């Protein structure tokens, strides 16, 4: 692909760019403690927390491991653990 002068790109490129490789801390949701309040989904800057039928999960393809969800979770249901690759 030829480069466009000025590094001009059209929208939607962040979907193609899997930022999950940046992560060195990984959020883990404890389903026992989770109250499905949805605060983690609200605060995630990368739209990487998804809910299905009230069950919350992390999209590790894009999650950069910033830890905002774990910090904000009122139930203490999210733990950050070291990423192992």
């Amino acid at each position, binding site marked *: 692909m030829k*480069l466009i*002068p*000025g*590094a*001009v*790109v059209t929208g939607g*490129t962040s979907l193609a760019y899997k930022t999950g490789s940046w992560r060195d801390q990984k959020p883990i949701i404890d389903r026992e403690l989770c109250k499905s309040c949805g605060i983690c989904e609200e605060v995630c800057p990368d739209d990487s927390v998804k809910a299905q039928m009230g069950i919350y999960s992390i999209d590790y393809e894009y999650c950069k491991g910033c830890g905002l969800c774990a910090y904000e979770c009122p139930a203490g249901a999210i733990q950050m653990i070291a990423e192992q690759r």
Partner: protein
Amino acid sequence: MWPDVVIEGSEAVALAVKAARPEVISAYPISPQTHIVESLARMIANGDLSAEYVRVESEFSTASVLAGASAAGSRSYTASSSQGLLLMTEVIYASVGMRLPFVITGVNRAVSAPISIQIDHQDTISLRDSGIIQFYVESVQEAYDLHIAAFKFAEDPEILLPVMVCMDGWILTHSYERVSILEQQEVDKFLPPYRPLHFLNVKEPKSWGSYAEDDVLMEFKYSIHSAMLKAKAKIEEIFQELAEISGRDYGGLIEAYLTEDAETILVALGSVTGTIKDAIDQMRAGGKKVGLVKIRCYRPFPYEDILSAVRGAKAVAVVEANFSMGCEGAVSLDLKAKLCGDPNAPKVIDFIAGLGGRDVNIKSVCEIVQKTEEMLRAGIATTESCWVGLNQAILP
């Protein structure tokens, strides 16, 4: 063609910018460029020019407004000086990378501290590595013509880089000269409206200068250099087109003045080249074979043209009003770097002259030539710059 007028340098620049029909002008006042943006503000207030005039709180914002306006597809313009230009530096680098073709008049003034409002070239030379195309002008007429051409250089789809026309503060901006003004319809034919391939549009979102990792960043940077190299031939073509409407043929990136048989050739940029030409005429009347290479376009650096003009000479004396602290003058550094592989290259001696507005007159130019000849005879292989007229007695 309109009759010639006698006007102030700043006003001539404002008339050239007006004729280019800019859509956005942003400005923050700083001497000695203030008269340019004042004139433009007056034109807009009087209804003579239809453009958005954005007053801002700093030069950083000025450059940012230009970048945004240019990305939105508007022809945009500002003028600044000295630390004002330095405050724009970050945005200029970004705009080069985003390939936003606005035009800036760099009205030359010394950089603080100590504070001075007088002219030297330290401010604009400090921007030489950014990728902005730089011209230096000798006269008000040249400033007028180059401002009209500047937009065309910048917006050429193969160049797409911001352009800076550098003119000496006070000496050019505040002096009155006879200037030949172009007719609007001629300028309109020469410079059609700016219609870029990519522009900000809410219906079709795009992003400029997007994140680049190590697999493409070098290629983006090289493509800026490559555009600069292509610009050399383009600039000559555009000068030709301008000559057809103005009758003034600037030829190329440099002007060689009486260099053909010259033994000593001075290399300089800006208004001092006018003084140097007068000094050369005097010296030639006395039998001295002296010539001048005026660098009109400094970036891209037209070293091929300079080399072919100076190759037959014994010595080159660079006369420049800037200094790279701890090393030497920028023009001398550039020239030596490009000459060093040439076995027939003349010796290059660097003269730092005119910092902070110190007068460089015919006498000082003759002394520079004399000193060059003496150094050549004595075989001194100096790489230290000579600071012209430096008062050793008061150095701390």
